[in-house]
């Protein structure tokens, strides 16, 4: 009887904990998604419905006017292209260089391996602002200031330590036997990397690519400092400068925000599972 009571009370406790868990997750969902939903709603309200005395929760007159206006603004398509180009270049460069380095650390045991790994971990600590100034001077001296290439090279380097750790985790998971088999069949080491290891780790590589892309797409501080003409400004910088210069109406700001996060959300939904796994590996080992 006493045991039965104990079981029942345990069951009740479990139910209570479950209920608390649901409440916490629900509250957090409101906190996380509320601002995004509100921005989306604002972006389809006409300006007169945004600036009102009585708060309007559901858009009474939905409109796409802000999106159209924003898109027709001079320079908006250019900067979208700039961002897309810089992001793509960063992802390609970082994956290429990072794959080589991660593969080397994952597969080979050589002198200085541990030291190099530690080195890649510690460089994450350096303040961005400290590097920003010398980078500005260096890029200016070699003529890459205010260029998308200069920006992409910078992003590549900053994303490298994290992507290297992620990629290493994914490569560690590919059995070495498969490579050995390919080598017996006459594959070179490079061939084995491209034909065996990379295809097997492709979901991990995709997740790493998404992480790099999100970082490059979102980056603001370096882009603000290292570019100064319309031909190389990226999306976050232009958005910020437009708000500052023209006192943009809220509807346009909201529309601009929505446009800039759509690619990220698509990317993210596409690779979130492997992304979470890879980040975990990167952070725990780091």
């Amino acid at each position: 009887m006493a045991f039965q009571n104990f079981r029942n009370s345990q069951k009740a406790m479990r139910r209570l904990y479950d209920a608390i868990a649901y409440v916490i997750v629900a509250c957090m969902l409101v906190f996380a998604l509320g601002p995004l939903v509100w921005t989306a709603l604002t972006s389809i309200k006409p300006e007169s419905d945004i600036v009102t005395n009585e708060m309007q929760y559901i858009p009474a007159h939905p409109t796409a006017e802000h999106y159209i206006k924003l898109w027709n603004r001079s320079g908006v398509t250019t900067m979208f292209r700039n961002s897309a180009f810089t992001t793509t270049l960063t992802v390609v460069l970082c994956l290429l260089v990072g794959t080589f380095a991660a593969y080397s650390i994952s597969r080979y045991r050589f002198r200085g391996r541990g030291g190099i790994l530690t080195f890649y971990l510690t460089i994450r600590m350096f303040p961005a602002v400290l590097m920003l100034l010398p980078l500005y001077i260096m890029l200016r001296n070699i003529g890459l200031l205010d260029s998308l290439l200069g920006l992409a090279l910078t992003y590549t380097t900053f994303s490298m330590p994290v992507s290297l750790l992620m990629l290493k985790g994914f490569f560690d998971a590919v059995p070495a036997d498969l490579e050995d088999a390919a080598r017996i069949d006459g594959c070179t080491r490079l061939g084995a990397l491209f034909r065996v290891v990379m295809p097997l780790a492709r979901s991990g590589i995709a997740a790493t690519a998404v992480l790099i892309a999100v970082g490059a797409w979102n980056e603001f501080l370096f882009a603000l400092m290292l570019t100064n003409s319309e031909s190389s400004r990226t999306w976050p910088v232009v958005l910020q400068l437009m708000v500052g210069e023209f006192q943009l109406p809220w509807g346009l700001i909201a529309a601009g925000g929505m446009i800039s996060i759509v690619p990220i959300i698509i990317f993210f939904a596409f690779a979130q599972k492997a992304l979470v796994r890879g980040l975990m590996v990167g952070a725990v080992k780091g």
Partner: protein
Amino acid sequence: MLQNALPPDSQSSQTLPAVRKGRSLNPLTWLGELSESRYWAYLLLLPSLLLVVAVIVYPVFYGVYLSFQQFNLLRAGLGMKFVGLQQYTELFADDDFWVIIKNTFVWVFGGAFSQFFLGLVVALALNRKNLKGGPLARVLLLLPWVIPSVVAGHMWALLLDSRLGVINDILVKLGILTSYRAWFADPATAMPAVLLVDMWRGTPFFTLLLYAGLQSIPEELYEAAEVDGASGWAKFRAITIPMLTPVIVAAVILRVIGLVNSPDLMIVLTNGGPGLATFTLSLYAFQIAYENFNFGAAAAVSVIMLLILMVFTTLYLKFSGVTKNT
């Protein structure tokens, strides 16, 4: 980039018999044969090392060097002049600087604590077995973390606006506030408001890592503790926290680095104001560099940031005891 993986001169190719025979003219074949050499592991690392040295290591040393120079980019004609510790002594003599240091500590520790705590609570909730909708909730909860800081800043500027802010409206309708407040313009609420925005962006990072850490704790440990009659709290203290410590330490360090280094939200939301209420070291360094082009002084501020981070990381690693085992 690829060229960097190759030896730049003919000297190194002497170690490669196949190349010397001139059998392969196709660069891919040549690379393949290069991969059989004993330097392959190092060659693979070379491109990344070159980039890191050029873009991170060299600039850091250059930055430290700059902090001892008088150098203004607008007056670059004057060149650099060695001034020793003058940049630093000038900073230390400035009362504003100490206010900014204090703000930085409030910002970094307030941010890291609030985000860690909330992240842990959410991760524990997500970790309940058989939670319906768990996978979807995990993805959705992660979303704020991938939103650009600029966009996040403007979103919250609208939400907390003193005239049109929906949060003001809700709080007034609930009877918590009697009238709308200008959250970012009031020195008392500006810092908490910016911290709230950063909490929105930063918490998912903790949730993600802590959740993954919780998932990796073997179920048997809990089962064994249950057999011994351990209560929920005892299990949490004796199993969850110790097992989670490495993840907690890694996550906190990464987040603190992020908080110290990024002035993004302040640039978008307050520009340090009102007064100095939300002025942090990173914003200070950025403003001196970006607005005054006084690179020497900005470098000195950045070096101080680096020192603070180094001291913090060392102490934190030491007291958390994670380095002992590994």
